[in-house]
């Protein structure tokens, strides 16, 4: 339809240096070597538009909000401009039958080639009746759309791992995309919401290298999820020095000390917040004084209190007192039995005579 991206950009008044600068930043965020920015810029400049279908399921639209309200609407927007977003309920002007038609047209025209983006978990309870679009359950829609997709990108913790809908007791029977789709490459971009640049980074990678980025064992791009928050945290030195904020308003908190004791889940959370930050690099949860909730990890909602340190018991001990009583009881019981046995042995004692020394 259109020519290479750089021309599109040029028509919009985006200079090559602007694009180079953007690619340098993107490469930095993807933990690619600083020199990769230029290669990326050149590849992307020449890339063509792939068709993308975005399906929202059991979700809160937070992920879409995160992407569309990202700090730099122009650049992220431009990346979206380089794709043909053929179906996105929240963003598309069409509604009802027209929208459904657009979806089916896109699926038919680009069969086997389109990228499928999913946000939200898929409820399986009540035959999927908890979430339906146009009278069809999410499960059916997903299966149909996934069948013709080149790859699936699960955006947000719900699509990636089931997220909050799946939290105990999971009333809707929510599952993740990877629970249902087994025969397509899936990229998980968890987070509640995910960082916008991760999304664009994955697209950029797809456009630059024609493939999906390298993934970890949970299907997440290693470049963004390879390190824990803790490892990249600027407060990490305080952890190593044993300097911890004990409450949210103590001297330690003011000094910017480590929030581990206040329940920060940074050590077990893989995400890029510590390096990419949020709101245009303004800040991120730990920098604003709150520990990491671990939102990009599976079942983070059920991982014990957000405000309890990782090394502290997740729940108050329930058995301790009872166990102590049982233990004492067992001890006393054995003790009584022992006394009886010893006293019996004493009572049965026959005074030894010389004859008793021989067999």
């Amino acid at each position, binding site marked *: 339809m259109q020519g290479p991206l750089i021309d599109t950009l040029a028509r919009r008044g985006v200079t090559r240096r602007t694009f180079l600068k953007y690619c340098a930043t993107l490469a930095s965020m993807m933990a690619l070597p600083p020199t990769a920015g230029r290669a990326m810029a050149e590849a992307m400049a020449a890339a063509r538009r792939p068709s993308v279908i975005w399906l929202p399921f059991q979700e809160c639209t937070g992920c879409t909000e995160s992407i569309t309200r990202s700090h730099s609407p122009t650049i992220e927007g431009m990346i979206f401009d380089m794709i043909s977003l053929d179906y996105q309920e929240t963003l598309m002007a069409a509604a009802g039958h027209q929208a459904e038609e657009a979806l089916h047209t896109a699926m038919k025209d680009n069969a086997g080639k389109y990228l499928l983006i999913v946000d939200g978990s898929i409820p399986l309870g009540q035959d999927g009746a908890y979430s339906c679009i146009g009278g069809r359950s999410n499960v059916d829609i997903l299966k149909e759309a996934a069948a013709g997709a080149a790859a699936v990108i699960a955006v947000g913790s719900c699509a990636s791992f089931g997220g909050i809908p799946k939290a105990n007791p999971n009333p809707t029977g929510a599952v993740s995309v990877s629970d249902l789709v087994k025969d397509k490459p899936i990229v998980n971009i968890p987070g509640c919401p995910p960082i916008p640049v991760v999304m664009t980074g994955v697209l950029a990678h797809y456009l630059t290298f024609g493939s999906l980025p390298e993934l970890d*064992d949970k299907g997440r791009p290693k470049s963004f999820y390879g390190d*824990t928050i*803790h*490892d990249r945290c600027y407060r990490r030195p305080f*952890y*190593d*020095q*044993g300097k*911890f904020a004990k409450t949210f308003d103590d001297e330690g908190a003011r000094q910017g000390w480590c929030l*581990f*004791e206040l329940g920060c889940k940074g*050590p*077990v959370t*893989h995400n890029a917040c510590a390096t990419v930050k949020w709101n245009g690099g303004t800040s991120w949860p730990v920098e604003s004084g709150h520990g990491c909730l*671990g939102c990009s*990890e*599976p*079942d*983070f909602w*059920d*991982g*014990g209190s957000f405000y*309890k*340190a*990782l*090394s*502290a*018991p*997740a*729940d108050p*001990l*329930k*058995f*301790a007192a*009872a*166990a*102590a009583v*049982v*233990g*004492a009881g*067992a*001890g*006393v019981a*054995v*003790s009584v039995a*022992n*006394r009886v046995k*010893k006293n019996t042995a004493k009572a049965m004692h026959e005074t030894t005579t010389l004859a008793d020394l021989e067999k």
Partner: protein
Amino acid sequence: MNDLQFLTWTRGPGLDIAVGIFLLGVLWRLIEIYTLGRKKDLAAPRHAAGASGLHTVFRRSLPPPGMLKRSPVSYIGGYIFHIGLAIIVFLGAPHILLIENLVGLSWPALPSQFIGLTAVVTMAAMVVMLADRINKPVKRFLSTFEDWFTWAVTFVPVLTGWMATQHLLLPYTQMLALHILSAEVLLVVLPFSKLFHGFTLFGSRWYNGRVNGHKGVPV
């Protein structure tokens, strides 16, 4: 079960069960052992300076004259790994936090790098002790399954804790969960194995000191 669920289990129900069994076991065993009682010594006591149960409780922490030379590995290795374990368990920040959560007491921690170094030294000492157990005829002769087992049960928490912080082999979450689980196994095993010497050695030293102190011998 995924990593985080595993970790949450070890931090929740797992810890609950382990601490429960530990408390149950410790109380049961202590009562079982110490209510066996002993006869009063009717001989007129001889009083001598330094001869008492309490003296021996402390004195036995140092090698008697000549013994260090006879068995340097046992003493030096033993000191290093016992002190190392104590430093790691009682002066590592996350451990202090756990203790604070369980019993409400807290104190300053040592830097994590120092704890990491201590863990390496402790593990080295434990490996040397293991080699000594394999090499020395007396130790090998005395060793039963329990000796090898308790060595492993003590070693694994140190190893997993250290590997977790160094990001070796497994992702931190899994390693941390394994670390907590292995520490829980240690808690469960402790009251029912020779590891219980951590409790009974005070009683043993006291009895020894008292029985011999009655005769005026500081042992």
